[in-house]
């Protein structure tokens, strides 16, 4: 016990005092390639990665921003591979456009860990994949809604940007599960994952459907917008379910404005731990799927930190 405490203090001291010095003595460098750094989900992931970095002063983390552009991300990751970085943790902007990177990494003998979005290459071409299933998230949300409102009633679905893979999958999972309950009617509106659009759509939706029993939104931002409209229009007892469970969703659930939010893991620090295992030569699962549990008042403390 004392030994562990001492070790912790030493670690902390190490992070604080030795950080500038450590930079020169590092051997391990991991590159983190995000498709963009403007989405809250991506920003949240980077923050957790930095927390992990603070706990591992011997590892240097280099972050590459894809700027929502496959070519930019591709050249950014190529540069990392050219300087023989220890490992690359990548969430591809596009599963096909980024495929050539797997070959480059293999030739340079740089382990490639894919997270969140898949890369369109054979399984032998990357070290490991870690992600979650958006279709399953939709099902989890649907089951939760049924649990809250029972077998009958009207549910408003606020969809994300049409055509985006997350939108398609979340919608599919939700509607598949809801189809098993003939008493439930789902009406869909598009909120583009944004607050203002969601508020406007929700205002129209509740004008036409005053008898709504639950709202399911493809992300927490839209769910919070829906909650605002319900509050303004004094519609009470409507279940509000969001998705992602980042800062916004956690706060929403804590304040009671959201009934629940389906947690979508940021994949950090799990993907970095995975990279370390690969670098240590351990055998790892090729495909890891992290759970997407429901964040509710009861489970809030477990998933929101």
């Amino acid at each position: 016990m004392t030994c562990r405490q001492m070790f912790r203090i030493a670690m902390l001291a190490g992070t604080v005092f030795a950080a500038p010095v450590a930079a020169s003595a590092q051997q391990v460098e991991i590159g983190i390639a995000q498709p963009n750094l403007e989405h809250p989900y991506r920003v949240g992931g980077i923050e957790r990665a930095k927390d992990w970095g603070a706990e591992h002063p011997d590892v240097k983390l280099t972050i590459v921003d894809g700027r929502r552009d496959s070519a930019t991300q591709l050249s950014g990751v190529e540069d990392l591979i050219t300087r023989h970085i220890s490992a690359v943790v990548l969430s591809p902007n596009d599963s096909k456009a980024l495929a050539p990177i797997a070959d480059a990494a293999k030739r340079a003998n740089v382990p490639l860990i894919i997270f969140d979005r898949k890369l369109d290459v054979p399984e032998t071409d990357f070290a490991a994949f870690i992600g979650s299933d958006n279709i399953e998230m939709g099902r989890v949300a649907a089951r939760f809604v049924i649990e809250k409102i029972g077998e009958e009633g009207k549910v408003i679905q606020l969809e994300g940007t049409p055509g985006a893979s997350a939108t398609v999958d979340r919608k599919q999972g939700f509607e598949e599960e809801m189809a098993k309950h003939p008493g439930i009617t789902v009406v869909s509106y598009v909120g583009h994952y944004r607050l203002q659009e969601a508020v406007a759509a929700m205002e129209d939706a509740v004008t036409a459907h005053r008898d709504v029993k639950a709202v399911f939104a493809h992300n927490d931002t839209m769910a919070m917008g829906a909650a605002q409209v319900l509050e303004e229009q004094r519609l009470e007892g409507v279940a509000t379910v969001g998705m992602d469970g980042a800062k916004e969703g956690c706060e929403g659930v804590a304040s009671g404005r959201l009934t629940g939010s389906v947690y979508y893991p940021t994949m950090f620090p799990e993907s970095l731990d995975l990279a370390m295992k690969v670098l240590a030569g351990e055998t790892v699962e090729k495909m890891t799927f992290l759970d997407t549990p429901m964040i509710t008042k009861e489970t809030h403390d477990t998933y929101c930190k």
Partner: protein
Amino acid sequence: MSDGRNLSERTPMFAKGNLVAGAKDLMLRNIAVTGLLALIIISTFLSPYFLTVDNIFNVLRQWTMVGLIAIGLTYVIISGGIDLSGGAVLALATVVGALAAPIVGSAGMIAVVILVGAVCGYINGALITWGKVPPFVATLGMMTAARGLALILSEGRTLTADLAPEFVFAFGRGYLGPIPMPVLLTGIVFITAAVVLKYTVYGRHVCLVGDNPVGAHRSGIQVEGVIRSVYTLHGVLAAMAGLLFLGRLGVGEPTGGMLFELSGIAAVVIGGTPFVGGVGSILLTFVGLMVIGLTYNILNLLSVSPYAQDFARGVIIVVAVMFSIRREAKSRARR
């Protein structure tokens, strides 16, 4: 456009004569007004929720932000230009507002936000007049840069703003009787902008600059100054839209106001203001805005599939503009 007719002959809105004949003329010659009335009548039959006070005020409030940008765009387009930066300046304004509110208080924040909008607009005007950059390119640059700046300042996050309750009341969630405050504010701006455009020397100068810049210059008008002023006005109005965004939603969102500039442009052109400039009407821009807003609303009330909605909106915008241009051409041919 310099065919010698004055504005009251070209835009029926201002035609003199008795009221009934004026209204008939307006209906016949302006597809936007006719279209709006048709839309309202058809929608009333289609949905029992449509023609209710709550719903109409909801729609008006939803479109206040695009409305303010559309007012600025009407001035810019009449002066012969275009501005694509409205939505991005709105986003920048919300982010700056959310950051400034805890430091300088709500009154100071309003001043800072308006200043940011004015600076963005003035830079557009300066690039166009001094830099000789075409308006499309200059404002495209501003659109990208302002959104980038909003992302830098907010570090990509949605910022929760710490706002005084008075501000939230006045700019977002308050009501005066049945009228939401943002609707009241936007209404005042619409009326002021319409009066300024029609009855003041400045308004006439904007039209003349768009109609005949050389003639305007020779008659002693500071053409470049007028151009800078309309872009500055547009920036200020986009920032005001940002204030409404903050008041209503309580957050600074770097991705907010996406594509508002395009909805604004659609409202202006449905209102019959031609892209070549010289003429136009703020009131018809309002009509155009309502054509778009009520189309969204009725499709939502009818729970039309979201994917079919985009298709329908596109068709409606194009058809509306096509008819308003045809009418214009026909009325010219008759003369």
